[in-house]
Every structure is written in structure tokens, then in C-alpha cells.
């Protein structure tokens, strides 16, 4: 029964994935001389073309270009949502919430800097069909109070209302962490409602994702931000697979990095710290590559579950991130080999 429920959307995801850009495309993009060439290639040869058409090649802004890649994600997510209903649909919708959170983050930073939010319009990508955030009005908000009031009918109000001001860096970071935490708690709660038998692989994949995010958060919180034990716990995520509450607390209480490393030596995540010099530089990429392969597997094996479509969107995320990395590499004029090191997908 549950298998046939996902048969249609699985087939759809398979067909959609056939259009993805492949390694050869990536090689072309890496070869491209500059931002313009990357843009032209994507516009003329890939499924991003539809969304890049409207942009002016002679007046390209890197960040706007990157933001518009996400237009594809919105449209693909909305498309796939037609095939879902009930708890499945509401879980799937978190991908749109992600973009909403990102968009709010951009706008809140703008408010903190006293920017004219209207000038950030091109960086904002969200689902016009599903979003309840009144973005059009937000663009016209002049200060933080006005901004908060506009969100009063959304879930975000509860998060933002206790902040009287966000001009200090500390508050701004807190607000952003809070938004992230809201997003991941939402995923966790919606994940709990899915059919556990059919979606075991998906649920485990997502929980591993939580584990990795927690590890990186605790590692960085200790090393760079010198946060208190309580704050580390306050912003940690719940619902991890291997790192339950007890292990999280133990990690937080670890006296030093060696102790932390020992504590996860018996887990799959040991790879994060198994390097000597390049831990900080590549930590995120290593995490994402791990997830990339996990979702590739989930995609090929997730035929009778929600797993395949979720993997499809996650793989699309990684693809967009890789393209973004390539765009950035042009800015720093990196060579092909150097660029490849920063990509999530392995390319020879």
C-alpha cells in the first residue's frame, strides 16, 4: 500500500533527475573564464536557463545570480508537492521554509545595517504559492519594529519578538541561530509524523544530518566563539541518530578537542576530525560530501518511499552549492584543480 503511494512521485523524481547537469557540464563550468561564461553556459545549456533568461548579462551581480539558481529549487519543489498530501506534503514543504528562512536572514541583516530593503529584492527567493510571509510588504519596512509587526501572523514573530534591537552583532547572530533552530525543529517534528516503516532510510539520513550539524556546532562553538556549556546546548539540535542527549551533553562537556575526538571515534562521523591540518578549512565540505553520497544512495534505493524525492531536492541543493562555489572560484581566480577541491561532488 505505502509503496504504491510513492510510486508516482518516485517515477517523477527519476524523470526529473535525468535532466540534471552532469560531470561534463561541471567540467565546462570549471573551464569557463569568468562569471559571464558560467552564466552563459548555464543559461544556454541547462535547466537553469529558464530562470536566468530574465537577467541582464552585462549587469551581472554575483549574489543575485546565485540567488536566482534557487528559483529552480522553488519551482521543482512546488511541482513535486502536487504529488503529495497530508504529512508527506507538510514534511516536503520544509524545503520551501528553508528558502523563507534564508530570505528572512538576508532581510534582517539588511535591517541591522540600515539598508533599504528594496535594494535586496533580487536576492530574495521564495515560493509565491506557499509562503505566508508578506515579503512585498517587508521590502518597504523601515525599521526593526515595523519589520517584526509585519510578521505578526507568521511563526517567525514568536522568534523575533523578544529582540528589542538587532544592531549589535551578538543579537544578530542569536536571531540567525534562532531561525535555524526553528527550521530544524520543524523538520524534526514533521519527520516524526512520517510513516516510519516506509521511510526508515529517509528518517535515518535526516537524523544523521542533525548529528553532523551538532558536531560542527559544538566544535566551532568551543573553538571560535568560546560559548558557555548552556548556550551550546541551547542551540544544539534534537533528533540525532547516534548523538542522543547524553552524548551531546558529554561532547559539550569535553575538556578539549582530543577528548571530543575520542568520544566520536566509534561513530561514522570520525572522518570529520581525522585530519591534521585541514580540519577547519574543509569541515563543511567533508560533511556535505558525506551527505551527498548518503542522499545519492537514498535516491537510488528510495523507490517505495518519500526518500527518493527528498534526496532529489537535497542533491539539487548540493548542485546549486557547487555551482555557487564555482562562481566564487572565478572571483578568486582559482585554477581548475583548486576549484575542484571545494566542490561537494568529486570530479576528476
Amino acid at each position, binding site marked *: 500500500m505505502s509503496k504504491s503511494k510513492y510510486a508516482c512521485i518516485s517515477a517523477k523524481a527519476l524523470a526529473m533527475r535525468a535532466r540534471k547537469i552532469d560531470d561534463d557540464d561541471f567540467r565546462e563550468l570549471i573551464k569557463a573564464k569568468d562569471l559571464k561564461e558560467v552564466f552563459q553556459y548555464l543559461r544556454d545549456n541547462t535547466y537553469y536557463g529558464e530562470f536566468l533568461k530574465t537577467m541582464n548579462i552585462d549587469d551581472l551581480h554575483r549574489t543575485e545570480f546565485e540567488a536566482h539558481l534557487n528559483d529552480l529549487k522553488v519551482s521543482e519543489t512546488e511541482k513535486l508537492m502536487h504529488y503529495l498530501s497530508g504529512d508527506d506534503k507538510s514534511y516536503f514543504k520544509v524545503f520551501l521554509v528553508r528558502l523563507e528562512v534564508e530570505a528572512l536572514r538576508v532581510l534582517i541583516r539588511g535591517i541591522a545595517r540600515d539598508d533599504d530593503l528594496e535594494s535586496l529584492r533580487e536576492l530574495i527567493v521564495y515560493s509565491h504559492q506557499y509562503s505566508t510571509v508578506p515579503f512585498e510588504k517587508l521590502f518597504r519596512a523601515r525599521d526593526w519594529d515595523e519589520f517584526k509587526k509585519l510578521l505578526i501572523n507568521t511563526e517567525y514573530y*514568536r522568534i523575533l519578538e*523578544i529582540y528589542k534591537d538587532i544592531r549589535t552583532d551578538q543579537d544578530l547572530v*542569536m536571531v540567525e541561530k*534562532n531561525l535555524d533552530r526553528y527550521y530544524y*525543529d520543524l523538520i*524534526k517534528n514533521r519527520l516524526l509524523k512520517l510513516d516510519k516503516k516506509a521511510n526508515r532510510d529517509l528518517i535515518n539520513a535526516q537524523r544523521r544530518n542533525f548529528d553532523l550539524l551538532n558536531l560542527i556546532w559544538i566544535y566551532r562553538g568551543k573553538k571560535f566563539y568560546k560559548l558557555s556549556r548552556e548556550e551550546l*546546548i541551547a542551540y544544539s539540535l534534537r533528533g540525532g541518530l547516534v548523538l542522543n542527549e547524553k552524548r551531546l551533553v558529554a561532547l559539550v562537556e569535553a575538556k578539549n578537542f582530543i577528548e571530543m575526538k575520542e568520544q566520536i571515534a566509534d561513530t561514522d562521523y570520525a572522518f570529520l576530525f581525522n585530519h591534521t591540518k585541514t580540519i577547519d578549512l574543509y569541515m563543511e565540505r567533508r560533511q556535505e560530501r558525506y551527505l551527498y553520497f548518503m542522499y545519492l544512495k537514498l535516491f537510488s534505493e528510495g523507490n517505495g518511499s518519500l526518500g527518493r524525492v527528498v534526496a532529489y531536492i537535497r542533491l539539487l541543493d548540493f548542485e546549486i552549492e557547487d555551482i555557487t562555489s564555482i562562481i566564487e572560484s572565478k572571483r578568486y581566480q582559482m585554477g581548475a584543480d583548486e576549484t575542484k577541491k571545494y566542490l561537494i561532488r568529486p570530479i576528476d
Partner: protein
Amino acid sequence: MAIENVIMMDVVGKIKYVDKFAKDIFLFNDIQIVDAMQEIDSGRFILPIREENMGELLGFAQLVSGETMMDEKNFVKTVNKLNELYKGSLNLDMISLAKSESDLGKALGKAREFDGNLVVEYSELKQINNQIEALGKSKIAYSYLDELDAKMSELDSLENFSYSLGSVTKDNAMRLKSIYNSVTSIVFHVGNQEDNEEVFMIVSPKDLEIESQRILKALNFKPIEGFNEKYTESPKQILEAIDAEIKELHTRKADLFRKLNLHLEENRADATDSFNTLSLYANLSIIKKFMAFSDENFYFSGWISKRDKQRMEAIAAKYPEMIIMFSDSSKGSGKPPTKMKNNWLFKPFENLVKLYGVPSFNELDPTPFLSLTYMFCFGFMFGDVGQGLVLAVAGFILGKRGVELGKVLFRLGICSTFFGFMYGSVFGFEEVIHAVWLRPFEEINSILFVAIGIGIGMLFVAYVYSIINKLRQKEIKEGVFGKNGICGFALYASLLAIVGINVAGFPVSAVLTPILGILAVLLVFIVLIREPLANYLQKNSHLYEEEPSAYYIESGFELFEMLLGMFSNTVSFIRIGAFALVHVGLFVAFQTLAEMAHNGVISVGVLIFANIFVIVLETLIVSIQALRLQFYELFSKYYIGDGVEFRPVDLQINLF
């Protein structure tokens, strides 16, 4: 004549009489106001150039539209306010308005005074509501501590500790719980909020307060409002005090309401007066918006029925120096609205006609023809004494309740009953009464032929309507030579004649057939060349309005469509016979079912169900089919329906 003649009335009067005149117009009601400025701008408002009209004529140069000067919004606002206070129990009394002289200044003054008296009570009410709301918050806040056996004053005056209550989301509550043991404060879970957040009380040493607040902020801790240092007792006592306070406020509120209502009742007469006057002035302002004004005069235009001319003249005569002019619709005063006028029998069917379109002022009103044939067709298709009466009763009740279509249903039900006697059918049973005319199922062929015959008759009438309509609009091309004009009619008649005399086998058929055949071919040819022919006869310079080749291709296809249409339109009327048969057939099927049941109760049940089913289904299908015949087979021949409906004053103005 089913379409009433309307004429354009243009009035110029002295500005000092404008209010009184506008009131007359408002009470007269049966007039469609037109924007006078537009009339003047388009040159239709023409004053005869005479010595005594000089002032009015000169006024044309300095006209201002009433639209820019009038503002009824203030009146409407006050009227609405009064209406709200009295919960809609005030009604506009046209009769007393007509009798009395109404004084705007007095009414406004009274309304203002009225408003002033209420302001005090209202602001007091508002204040009480705010207080109740604040107390409600305090009540919730203190109820989280209701098990605490200590005085709040003691808590508030702790030297080294501070306390706070607040809520966090469920997920953050989990996080808070895992740092209970190490956090620098004491954490109590004191309850849950309505929105599913958990409420905690945090007691922390004052020295470490900043640290605790930081952690709480990290968990998005939202302090609970409503604590107040004026409450010093224990929470239980405080809650009791708050309850008492709320109760007292409610009594005061009820008191105020009572006073307010008393005040309202005492002043009902005055309020009604103000309401009437202000409503009137709101309406007058709207009427005046349509007028144009010069320094001395006002200019007004509107459509009225021709028969109201004398009454309007009598009104105008009351005012000195008022000029009133009438112009006929035929003299090109813009496109006149259509005022349909039908007797009680046909009136409800106007709605069906309007469904298609309002007749144009120079078109024949199709309502009488539609009413008669629609009722006839419906009865013919659905003839049953019992079921017809059910429909008639249902229609009558609906009609009384103001559903306009109910009146149509009532008439259809009566026709159905009439045909029920013709067919001898009562609630589907054919054994109860004798058929006056025939039983459809026994004479299938006759009923189908009669149906076609009726159809031909109806089509003939449609042709006549079409010819009259087109000739009235001076359309020689379509009216005389067109497919729905005289030629088309003649062609249809001769084709029918050819079929008729051959089928009947008249001895003259051998002679007549070729003659009629040649006539038909000739008529087809005339229809084909109708455009150049009409243009030639009217001595127009252009024979064709487009390329001749394009015209002939189009016209050729139209010929094909016309011939096909003549056939299909005629055959289409078989349906009225067919549905007469369906009615019987459907019931026979149910009767068989009832017999098969071999059980008295079930059989009766089946037959009752059958009747309900037949009534609902057939009413729906038959009324749609009959309407389809009207709209598709008949209206497409003779009716355009692009007129504008006449809207009397009270329909144009909608205050509320």
C-alpha cells in the same frame, strides 16, 4: 408593446431650487439619471437659442460637474452610525419624507448632539474593556503560581534573588531540561500555555542575573505579562481579588449598556428623524453628483418613460424659471435604456430573457413569445397532473418568498398540469383519468410529427420577429436578402413546401416541385450576393466592404451553414416530443421495478421515490432543454439583446 418608450429629459433650473428638485426626483424614483456633464459635453443637451434662455446658455461656459462638488460620505457615515446604534431597526420612511419639509441643518445638529452624548459613555465602555483585558492577563499570570503559599510582596522584595515567569516552545523546553542541573538558577515548570508552550518560573541570584538572562534569551524565553507590584497577597488571594474586580467591571459595563440603551430609546423619534433626513440628503448628494452646475443654474438629465412626461412637467411647473425639455430616443440622444413592460403572466420570464441579454430599445421584446412557447414546450415535454401541481405549489411558495424564478416555476407547473389532462397522466399513472387528446406512448409517431409541426410554427414566428427587427434597424441587407430575412424565410417556406407536397403526394406536386425548386435556387443565389445587391439598391459607392473573393468565400460557408441550420433547427424540435415519451418511459421502468418487488410497502416506496426522482430530474432537464430551444434555435435567428437595462434611481443609489 412590450418595450416602453423612454425619452430623455433635460432640465435647467435655478440653483436655489436644486435641493427641492433633487428631492422630487428621488421621490419620483422611476427615472434613470444620466451624467449631465457628459450629456452636455457630447452635445446632446441642447437649449433652444432664445432671448429668455441667454443666462442658461451662457452658463454652459462655466460648468462644473457635481461629481467634484458633492460629497455624501459624511452623511452616509452618520447614517451608518445611527443604524449601527439601533441595530438596523431604523427604516427609511418615504411617506413621511414626501410630506414634510426636511431641514438638513437641524438634522445634522441633532445627530451631532446625539453623538456628543454617546461619546462619554462610549469612552467609558472602552476603558472598562481595556481594564478587563489587562485583568485577564494578570489572572492567567498569577494562576501559574496558584499553588505557591507565599505572599507576592515577599517574592518581589527578595534581597538576593529575582524571579521571572516566561514561556518557551516544547522543543526549547527539552533543551532547558537538559541544563536544569548546571544552570545558575532554579527552574520550575509551572504549567502549559494555550498555544502549547511550556511555562517556567526562573529564580536566580541577582549577582548572576545577567548570565541567566543570556541563557534564557538563547532559549527564546518570552516573559509573561500581567504581574503587577500592586498585588501583594498570595497568588490565591490575588486571583480572588482579580475575579472580584472583573465581576464588578462587568456589572458596571452592563449598567452602562443599560443606560446607553435607555438613552437610545428615549431619543428614538429624534434619531429616526435625523436618520430619514440624512439618508435623504445622502441620496440627494448622489443625485446632485450627476448634475452640472454653473453660477446660477443647475443642469440635470435623465431617462423617463414617455407616459411620465406630463407628471414631470407638472413637477417642473412648481419652480419658477425652470426649463424642461424632452427629446425622443430616435433623435439620437445616446443609446436609451430599455424599459421592459409586460403583464403579470409574462413578467417573470423577463429574467430568462435577461439571462441572454436585455433587448435593445429598437428591438421587439421577445418576452411574450418566449413566455408562451416556453410554457407550451415545458408542458408538452413534462405533462402530468399530479407532478405539475407539485411544481406549481412549490413555485408558488418560492415566489411568495421572493424568489423570482419561483414565479416561473409556478406557471410551468400549471402548464404541466394542463398537458397532464391532455395525456391523461396523474403522478405517472395512466389508468386514473382519460386522456383528453392522446397517450404519447400509444401514438409515438403522431407525437413526434406534432412536435416538428410546433417547431416549424415557432420558427416561422422567429423569422417574422427577425424581419421586423432588422427592418426597424434599417438593415436592408440582412432584413430583406439575409438568411434570417425575407429571402431566408421564403427559402425555408419553399423548401418545406417541396418536402410537404411530395410526402403528402398531392397531384400538383409534379408541377409545383420544379417551380419551387427554381425559386429556392434563386433565393439561395440572392442570399449569396446579398451585400453587393443591397449596396447597389441603396446606391452605395462600394459594392463590397471587403475583398470580393473574401466575401464570397465567407458567404459560401454561410450558405452551407444556413441550409444545414434550417434542417437541424427543424429537427431539433423533435426533442419536445421525445421528452414527452421519456416522461412516460421513465415511469414505466419504475412501475416495473415496483411490481418486481412483490411487496406492498417496498412497491409504494419505489413509486414515491420514482415520483420525487422524476419531478427533480425532469424539471431540471426539461427546463434546460426548453430554454436551449429558445436561446439556440430561436434567439440566434432574431434576437441580439445588447440593450442597457433601465435602472430607476433607487437601484442606482446604494447607500448601505
